């Protein structure tokens, strides 16, 4: 590591690694050139606030690791996917072929992941998703090059189904946007809920005003409402739900009230329920350090997007350390990532056969902290060491 402590030498080796690669012996190159990470996050358009959480979580991980993983210097290339699939493909191909990134990390939305999965895995690059966890890649489409540090979407929705079931709610009203993730949410919820769905309502993704749906909820008087309304949709719904005086009907949600939307929802969301793999108040040293330093550096409360990215940084650090900084043996590297030998901010964490996490899932509730900020806090553990329902369809090759 002495070389890297001398900035002049490090710079020269860096140049050798990029410009005149042919002159440097490959072995030397592999050990001294920085590890390049392509961090895919949406930073423009509707999902930008989620992408910002995701990026900042990774950046805090880098800060804690002194910008090194497994002892090797890291260069992070931030890629804004703009929530446009064809743009994402072009930029990710550029990262792989021009910048020669060693890992692709991040991705907020499933449709972007669906667009970039082939170019990344076809090139033999590992892709660590830190948010999107679609069923297609958990089941038949599973790939040895694909890991996720977040969850399979169905798991999170099924937590709320279980919560509704355990709370003896018999009549539940379901409200989601009319797109694939919305329909998946309903399926996930139903998988663990045996009561009656009094009505399922699908709204367009551009919905502004929920008064029609709120009137319908009031007229049906369900025991609880289950909803999945990400981003601005959730902000609109929560504000209007509270104003319509419906807050006495339990509000069960996924990705609707979290730290990315709470600054705008504020008091309107107090007491509303959510489901997740992680919450800022989780009581373990790794998490306390993460939340404290995240707020110190970025001055806002992190959401799960940030936590999962932070975990990905620690995961890669452990894996690269295990293989001694040598990334060329893909099988060894894959085994090292799969070992998941790091301290997750969630506590227990391991990978299943499909390289999706096997983990506990929690019911959360929105609370106000003593300092006046809002965050989600754990209510109870609903599922323990849960394996997603698609894992059994995955035929994962043993060797790459």
């Amino acid at each position, binding site marked *: 590591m002495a070389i890297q402590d001398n900035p002049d030498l490090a710079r020269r080796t860096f140049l050798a690694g990029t410009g005149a690669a042919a002159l440097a012996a490959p072995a030397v190159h592999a050990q001294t050139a920085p590890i390049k990470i392509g961090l895919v996050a949406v*930073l*423009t358009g509707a999902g930008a606030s989620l992408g910002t959480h995701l990026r900042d979580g990774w950046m805090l991980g880098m800060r804690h690791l002194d910008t090194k993983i497994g002892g090797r210097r890291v260069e992070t290339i*931030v890629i*804004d996917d703009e*929530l*446009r*699939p*064809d743009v994402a*493909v*072009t*930029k990710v*191909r*550029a990262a*792989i*072929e*021009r910048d020669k990134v060693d890992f692709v990390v991040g991705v907020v939305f*499933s*449709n972007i992941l*669906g*667009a970039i*999965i*082939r*170019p990344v895995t076809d090139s033999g690059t590992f892709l660590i998703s830190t948010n999107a966890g*679609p069923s*297609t890649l958990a089941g038949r489409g599973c790939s040895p090059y694909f890991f996720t540090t977040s969850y399979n979407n169905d798991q999170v929705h099924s937590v709320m189904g279980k919560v509704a079931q355990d709370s003896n709610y018999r009549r539940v009203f379901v409200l989601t946007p*009319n*797109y*694939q*993730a919305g*329909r998946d949410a309903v399926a996930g919820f139903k998988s663990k809920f045996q009561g009656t769905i009094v009505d399922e309502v699908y709204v*367009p*993704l551009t919905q502004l005003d929920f008064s029609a749906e709120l009137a319908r909820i009031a007229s049906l008087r369900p025991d609880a409402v289950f909803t999945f309304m990400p981003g601005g949709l959730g902000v609109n719904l929560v504000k209007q739900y509270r104003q319509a005086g419906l807050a006495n009907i339990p509000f069960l949600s996924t990705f609707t009230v979290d730290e990315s939307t709470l600054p705008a929802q504020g008091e309107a969301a107090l007491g509303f329920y959510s489901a997740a793999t992680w919450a800022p108040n989780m009581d373990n040293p790794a998490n306390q350090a993460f939340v404290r330093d995240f707020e110190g550096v970025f001055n806002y409360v992190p959401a799960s997007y940030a936590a999962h990215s932070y975990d990905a940084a620690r995961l890669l650090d452990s894996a690269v350390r295990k293989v001694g900084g040598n990334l060329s043996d893909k099988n060894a590297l894959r085994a090292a990532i799969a070992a998941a030998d790091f301290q997750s901010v969630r506590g227990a964490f391991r990978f299943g056969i499909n390289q999706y996490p096997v983990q506990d899932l929690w019911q959360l509730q929105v609370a106000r902290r003593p300092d006046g900020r809002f965050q989600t806090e754990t209510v109870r553990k609903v599922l323990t060491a849960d394996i997603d329902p698609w894992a059994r369809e995955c035929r994962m090759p043993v060797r790459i």
Partner: protein
Amino acid sequence: MRWRDAAVPLAIFALLAIAPFIGFGQGYSLTLLARAMIFGIAAISLSLIVGGAGLVSLGHAAMLGIGAYGVVVLDHARITEAWIVIPAAMAAAGAFAAVTGAVAIRTSGVHFIMITLAFGQMAFFATSSLSVYGGDDGYTLYNRTELFGTRALEGRLFFHFACLGLLILSWALVETLLASRFGRVLRAAHQNETRARAVGFEPYRYRLVAYALAGALGGLAGVLLANGAEFVAPAYLSWQRSGDLLFMVILGGVAGPHGALMGALAFILIEEWLAHLTEHWRLIFGPLLILCVYFMRDGMAGVLRRD
């Protein structure tokens, strides 16, 4: 004048043809160039109706999207032969254009802009609700379209030249159309509708044919876009994408397809370059757009002609 109009595109085609051999041969550069050429085809098709017929459409992304979804629908049915996929997708986009155009062309000016936007939005919502094809999440194509049963289009270099070939064909087609009697009627009706009617032409039919043709060509671009990205999503049909296409045409100049060609290439390359500079590249892109519109009344083609 006509000769100079052709000189620029010919130079561009020549450059694109040798690009892979003068330092743009990596897979990534080829992907970028293919994307630029695909949007070139789309912009050329749009220029037929914007420049030729004076119909400003803010729904042209729907044509691309329908072409791309044509590939998806056939792929789902395990039909991947280019000689079936391309005509079918083009026919679908052309038919959509013909049906919506039949209504839209009855209006003019701002109303036309808005009604095409409305049809574009309808197509957008329709594709979003196709859960068989992944709905909003989109559809990953595991194989590109086949050519005579071969996987030739999988090769980046082959795909590059396929796009280039189709780009040249599209340009030549639109150029020829506009220079023909058909094109002269279109332009005459655009400049003075009353006079065109007085000499016995019914502009409606000419416009409708132009609109349907532009739709079919847009569908072709959609087929290529789907193959280039190996992925199709409703985002291809968003109205912002229609705005981008319109801007490409204006940036290059509405005088003919060569303007649209230049505009599309410049747009994609500028976007790529700016995005590399800073995260807030749109802070530069927005004003740049305004300045372009302000200073280049006739687009890039106009600037070239001035000297």
